[in-house]
């Protein structure tokens, strides 16, 4: 099995795909936020990724680290709310880890994801089980690592990660929020799916779908 490698071009494509997925799910994410938050999560992310898309031409000649850092900065300065600094930090931290690189291998991807997630945890002081985006990301990261360590390759690993992210999303329905706006609802937040976990899953799934279509 040939090891899969992501190029700068792949990264740009994935970001562009994520923009589209967010646009498509703008209303869905907003509706989820209406139930337990303030009805803006889809609107916020869509505003951010639209700005990212607009700035994309300026990133074309940059390395992957710089691209991701720029994406993070655009998100930070356009999304606002809770998800802005969180996703912004996520992308900036990922960029930091792969600074100067023009290709990403398995190890890079794990390291990036790990750094991004710690960034989110530091910034938001939340942990798994608080009914946040972390509930999609942490199981995904764990699954990514264990699948890769079994030598099953990036394609399968990211697909497995996306599956576990999805399970994490479903799990957020069963728990009460401890962080973010939904926490004000206390027990009343139970039964509702977390919008941030959902958007995190959608992004991971977008990566999986892209990788799945790559020639090996």
């Amino acid at each position, binding site marked *: 099995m040939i090891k899969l490698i992501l190029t700068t071009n792949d990264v740009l494509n994935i970001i562009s795909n994520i923009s589209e997925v967010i646009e498509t799910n703008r209303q869905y994410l*907003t509706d989820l936020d*209406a*139930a*337990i*938050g*303030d*009805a*803006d999560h889809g*609107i*916020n992310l869509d*505003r951010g990724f639209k700005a990212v898309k607009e700035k994309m031409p300026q990133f074309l000649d940059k390395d992957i680290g710089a691209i991701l850092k720029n994406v993070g900065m655009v998100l*930070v*300065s*356009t*999304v*606002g*709310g*809770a*998800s*802005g*600094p*969180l996703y912004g930090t996520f992308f900036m931290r990922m960029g930091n880890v792969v600074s100067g690189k023009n290709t990403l291998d398995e190890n890079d991807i794990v390291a990036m994801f790990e750094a991004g997630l710690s960034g989110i945890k530091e*910034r*938001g002081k939340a942990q798994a089980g608080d009914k946040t985006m972390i509930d999609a990301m942490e199981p995904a990261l764990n699954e990514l690592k264990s699948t890769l360590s079994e030598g099953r390759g990036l394609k399968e690993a990211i697909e497995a990660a996306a599956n576990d992210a999805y399970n994490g999303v479903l799990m957020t329905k069963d728990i009460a*929020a*401890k*962080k*973010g*706006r939904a*926490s*004000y*609802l*206390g027990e*009343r937040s139970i039964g509702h799916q977390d919008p941030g976990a959902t958007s995190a899953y959608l992004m991971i799934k977008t990566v999986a779908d892209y990788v799945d279509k790559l020639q090996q």
Partner: protein
Amino acid sequence: MKKLINNPDEVVKEMISGFLYAYPSYLRKLDNVDVVVRKTSPVDGKVGLVSGGGSGHEPAHAGYVGKGMLDAACLGAVFTSPTPDQIYEAIRAVDGGKGVLLIIKNYTGDVMNFEMAKEMAEMDGIKVLEVIVDDDVAVENSTYTQGRRGIAGTIFVHKIAGAKAEEGAELEEVKEVAEKVIKNLRSMGMAFTPCIVPAAGKPSFTLDEDEIEIGIGIHGEPGTHREKIKGAKEIVAELMDKIIIDLPFRDGDEVALMINGLGSTPLSELFIANKEVNEYLLGKNINVYKTYVGEYMTSLEMSGFSISLLKLDEELKSLLDASADTPAFKQFK
């Protein structure tokens, strides 16, 4: 959705434009970011006060930029915290050499965005401190959660910290009095009907014709529970019971009172609520020193109101009495 707008995506931009047309002698806007500052910013030798939050709470916070209150307000998208770059520019624009105090309402997003901006400004060598307002007693405080929300009581922080800064106090002193306000401040609200975020185009929740939501936030976030509609006296008693016991406010205390309309509730009804609050307080021998009735921190066109109570001492009284001249808050000494 029936709104007096042109385009849901341009609401904030166009609102700011109309705001600047209205108050050219009070304010100016920073280039490229949605931040309004006093016309004369930075004010030399005065601590700068920066607040902000999502839009949709007008006149908060831009309406409170002016003499005796804020130096800058950062305007986020509707119900969405402003971003670090905005807040960073605001800090830079109002630092008159004595440092800047950030007045943040306790929402995950607001706190994170303001703190990122604070870190950026500190790298420039600007002294920045922050206070976090969490006056809403509806939400149980707990170390496991985000903590309480900041709602309309925040205006008292603007007013009193603003008066202190205007006196020429040092950054630490301004922060200290702001924290004293926060420690002595409690609020709670309720809603009759939801509001519609322009970009969403539909209400964020629905209530039956005979249902009310108790403990509502200012972003259409659901409150603590729903119940059947009841009279003003009973509604006020329910909110006041929670507010009073929390500090607690006691026999003989002097308080400032704010009856804040969330958007659609007519002023006449806010005055009826004020009557009920006053009678409630009379019954507890708590003395109202000063009253504010009106729309101070709204939720678009939500129908409902909140009550804020601030326990006063001599220092807070004299700062509250100081004159203020901003677009939305004018007071003669």
